[in-house]
């Protein structure tokens, strides 16, 4: 962990100096994350990848203004968030449903969700830790299903086959994982709430 941390801060220094290899390191590390976040709001793989590309171009152009290692992730997510909001507000997100009212409702909800997420440096680092911990704390089978679903974008049927379980079991594991994450996250949001008010 320490070796990794010192490697990353060295890489960050190189990045600040404009070394491409250092940039590539962060690109490799965060590209999928930013895409995976954005796709939840733009609903299109290509659009989400374009958006992530754009975030990285901006990161590179603004590298002198990034003042800490954690600032990289914070910059990228903040960029992705505001870009998603822009796309939704300017009606650039493709219609998903035949029913226009449904499209409208989804956008309104997405705007509300995006606005409720803050990506400042401190919160993000803490959030990352909590999410990693929460996923690790899932029961083994549930964790396996969740990872296959969320990070490997597998279909339920594929997961069921790979793990030799029924489709129903896959669905049950996902429901369980979500409930668990929701509780963990709510606790965290609640803690944050108290923190803000005590300050």
């Amino acid at each position, binding site marked *: 962990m320490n070796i990794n941390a010192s490697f990353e801060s060295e890489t960050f220094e190189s990045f600040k100096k404009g070394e*491409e290899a250092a*940039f590539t390191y962060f690109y*490799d*590390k*965060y*590209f*999928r*994350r*930013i895409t*995976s*976040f954005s796709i*939840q*709001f733009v*609903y299109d793989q290509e659009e989400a*990848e*374009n958006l992530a*590309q754009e975030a*990285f*171009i901006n990161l*590179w*152009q603004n590298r002198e203004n990034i003042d800490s290692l954690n600032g990289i*992730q914070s910059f990228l*997510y903040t960029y992705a968030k505001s870009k998603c909001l822009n796309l939704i507000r300017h009606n650039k997100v493709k219609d998903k*449903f*035949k*029913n226009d009212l*449904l499209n409208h*409702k*989804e956008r309104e*909800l997405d705007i*509300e*969700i995006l606005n*409720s*997420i803050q990506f400042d440096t401190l919160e*993000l680092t803490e*959030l*990352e830790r909590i*999410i*990693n911990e929460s*996923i690790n704390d899932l029961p083994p089978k549930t964790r396996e299903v969740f*990872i296959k*679903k*969320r*990070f*490997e974008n597998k*279909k*339920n*049927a*594929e997961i069921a*086959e790979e793990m030799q379980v029924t489709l129903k079991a896959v*669905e049950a594991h*996902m*429901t369980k994982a*979500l*409930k668990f*994450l*929701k509780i963990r*996250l*709510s606790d965290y*949001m609640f803690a944050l709430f108290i923190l803000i008010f005590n300050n």
Partner: protein
Amino acid sequence: MPSEIIYKYLANEASEQEIQTLFEWIEASEENKKHFITLKKAWAITSLSEGISKDNAPVIKIKPKNKAVKYLKYAAVLLFLFGLGKIALNFNHKRKHSKEIVLELGDGRTEIITKNNQRNLVNEKGQLVAKKFANQIVYFGKAENDVIVYNSLKVPYGKTFKLILSDGTVVNLNSGTTIRYPEQFGISGKRTVYLTGEAFFEVAKDKEHPFIVNANQVDIEVLGTKFNVNAYPETSTVNSVLVEGSIQMYDKENPSNAVLLKPNQMAVWQNNSKKITTKSVDPAFYSAWTKGELTFKDTPFSTIVKIIQRSYDVEIINENSDLARQTFTGTIKISESSVENILELLKRDTPFDYTIKQNTIIITNIP
């Protein structure tokens, strides 16, 4: 609210009907709405997890120096499928085939591609030329000289694989396929790859370097903008189906023996007569396998047998004479069906008996 629907929604698998119900529920109370928002938020920010970058390195390369985004633009999307001819019929021969996906490098080294072994491929000069993942290999880098080193990839029965060439061309490889391709395409000349089996090509646009698929005795050259090519396996033919743009199929020995394809046309090369004929087709039908589907339209049972053997890596011996004369129409999702499922389905149409021993299925008449 059944949380299954929320989860289906998040995984992008809910129907419009289900989403309608979900949204009605969300609107029913402030509490419901809060519940949903927290869940979607949780789902979206799990992208922060370190798990997400591990096995999913980016396919698209970026050059920050130029401040320009390099998107993969496909001038040509070509679907190509080519006859294994008699080899496909030779079951014993097939048995000796490797069960693994094998990559052979220019210097003769071979690598077996297994699950969960992400690796970098380095050339003799120690330069990174490709990244290898469980389901695909991505080549990158730029052409530096005209010395071309060939790699080849063998995909066994029962598996499929994806290859991204150094020019950004995407190749989906079907079961039982071998492809030979340059590790880096040269600065000058054409981009040529050699194929046995079946593949779907999405060719990266590059007017100065025509893309050629060599299959058996024919070359298929990518000429225009967007298109798909599909050439056939089974018998002694090479078939090629165009979706968009233009391609040319010609006899390698006699290049004036050529046809230029229009979208929604198929060109058929006959090994014996050395003739190329064309006809109109529905291209979606011929590219369905890239989505993990087997599609049949008045397809003879003998052809279906070959496709099942390749897709599932089984051996089928048909001793039922009625069945041999039958044709079938329909679509099967490989990931959702076992061989037994398919046989049970076919049985409903034409009754037969079958026994399964290990990987061999024997189909017989009903006693």
